[in-house]
């Protein structure tokens, strides 16, 4: 299969998945008892049954379920995710407004993960079964075991309250000001730790596997310095698997942001989702969930294509 055909096939594959994601998000809301009109009736007890029926008809709630789904889907495709009842703002406006905050946080966590994990993984693989390897593996195991919300609380407790290195709350300045970037370190580390640890473990094992291959022995036999062997030959080959995992980590960073934004009071998408859940804003929950689903499908698409570009073997399966 040529690279172009592989990419074309992989891109076509996302359409049934996108369809499935939209069906599931829609179904989630409609298998649960009660509809928006019930909420309205509960808030205004003096609505007559006739009026209730008229409301149902107006919102199309008497239509067959597939017709309701199609109506909703047509809206979504036109960028209409519905409205936030409490503030009467469009869901899409809220998402567009919150998105940069989450992207800033996620990017920080992602960069932190890669900066820590790649050198640590190389170090551990080169010093395999020595003290340094054991220490870094222990740290990586702790990193995947620590709950991110507790790590965030502990960073606030130690870094902000005890050592006074950081402000307790986010400074009220522009997103890309120096104070803000300094503050972003705390949530960035919190969100990136689990990813850094996962990435480091994969980096170490893929490096260790490459080190045993024959081309490494050949390179050493030619008299290349160990530094060149590791950094030029082994690293390049083991980075292939790491690159794709790094793309897959997007999912873990997205779900991390939901919790971490709550810890640090960060006004991103995750926090919007939590408040939508507490206020039962169904349209907002649906909109954000669908948005996250689509983002992850696209991230996985990028990961697969990247893998195929970097490793020609994968195309000939």
């Amino acid at each position, binding site marked *: 299969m040529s690279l172009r055909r592989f990419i074309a096939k992989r891109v076509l594959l996302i359409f*049934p*998945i996108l369809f*499935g*994601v939209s069906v*599931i998000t829609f179904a*989630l*809301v409609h298998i*649960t008892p009660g509809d928006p009109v019930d909420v309205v009736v509960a808030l205004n007890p003096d609505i007559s049954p006739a009026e209730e029926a008229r409301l149902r008809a107006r919102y199309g709630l008497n239509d067959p379920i597939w017709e309701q789904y199609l109506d909703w889907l047509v809206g979504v495709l036109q960028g209409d995710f519905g409205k936030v009842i409490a503030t009467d703002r469009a869901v899409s406006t809220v998402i567009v407004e919150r998105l940069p905050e989450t992207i800033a946080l996620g990017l920080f966590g992602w960069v932190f993960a890669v900066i820590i994990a790649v050198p640590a993984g190389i170090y551990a693989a080169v010093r395999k079964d020595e003290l340094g390897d054991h220490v870094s593996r222990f740290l990586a*195991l*702790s990193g*995947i*075991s*620590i*709950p*991110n*919300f*507790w790590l965030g*609380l*502990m960073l*606030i*407790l130690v870094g902000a*309250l*005890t050592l006074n290195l950081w402000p*307790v*709350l986010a400074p009220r300045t522009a997103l890309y000001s120096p104070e803000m970037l300094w503050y972003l370190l705390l949530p960035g580390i919190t969100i990136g730790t*689990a*990813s850094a640890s*996962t990435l480091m*473990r*994969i980096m170490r*094992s893929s490096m260790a596997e490459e080190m045993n291959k024959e081309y490494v022995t050949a390179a050493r036999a030619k008299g290349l310095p160990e530094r060149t062997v590791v950094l030029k030959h082994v690293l390049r080959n083991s980075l292939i698997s790491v690159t794709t*995992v790094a793309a*897959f*980590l997007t*999912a*873990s*960073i*997205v*779900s*991390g942001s*939901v*919790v971490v934004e*709550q*810890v640090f*009071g960060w006004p991103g998408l995750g926090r919007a*989702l*939590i408040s939508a*859940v*507490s206020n*039962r804003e169904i349209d907002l*929950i649906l909109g954000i*969930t669908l948005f*996250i*689903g*689509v983002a*992850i*499908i696209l991230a*996985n698409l990028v990961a697969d294509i990247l893998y195929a570009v970097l490793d020609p073997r994968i195309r000939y399966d």
Partner: protein
Amino acid sequence: MSTERGRIRVTGFDTDRVTERDDLSDWSEATTGGTESRWRRALRRFRHNRVAMLGVYVVAAMALLSFFARPVTIAGITVQPFSIAPYDPSTILYLEPGSTVGRYDPPTLAHPMGTDASGRDLFSRVLVGGRLSISIGFVVVGITATFGLAYGAVAGYYGGWVDEILMRFVDVIFAFPGLVLALVIVALLGGGYWPLVIAFSVPGWAGYARLIRGEILSVKENEYVLAAQALGARDRSVIFRHIVPNAMAPLIVQASLSIGTVVIGVAALGFLGLGFEPGTPEWGTMLDQTRETLIQGPGGSIPWWATVFPGGAIFLFVMAMNMIGDGVNDALDAQEVGNVGQGGGG
């Protein structure tokens, strides 16, 4: 000395010396009577892994402590009468007559972990707090591994369009981060024990299904499968008696690594105030209110104990669980399975 053997007389060789000499090694026929089964060998390797065994002891100790922390009654009958925890986790000691306990008392001998915002004994709460998270972790992994196994086995064995449809559905589940899907389900169903089990089971099975399908695809090429089919075995018995046992190793590794992920997920929903009623003695829920206290800061003194101990308990349990998972992985010599933000948490 000499030995008579038929008509030949052998000299210079004493057979007694051969039969009576010390063994060169402790090899004897009896100990290598049969080949050690794969599972027995894995168990022996696991037992020799000190880190993994430490994990087993910690998990067992924490599970037993939380079970025996307060009496357990099922339908009015006390099935577990012991009570290790010194106080009832829900009693607000602050309000008890003649009590000297206040809100956020620092750790003392009477209250080794201090008291929380409502003047409840934190030590008792941390002990009991494991019940919900730990048991949900095991129940969810049991449900999801079983379902994922059956699902992946069917997809992998039948292949073709069955496989295509079943696996596209798995792809759809994978498009949601486990925690987000769980959050939305809890938002719609409300909190509580069984809603949380459902919330983490819905996203959790897909990982097992994908894993088992891949294993089945390679195992089913073996000749013994063809032999079983040729002998007229039914599909069900081919799948579950011949293929699945040989594809189990990565499933067990994944399951042991997932328990920790689910426990963190349950605690995370508790922390977000969605998992259980506020005030429930559960590790995550206990951290819910401490965030406000930390950030607003009651001036001067910081009640660090209310944050450190419940979160530390989750960390310790999940760390021990992951040590077991790594040990199982090494013992079964399974491939590295990525535990990347899926399987009901992250």
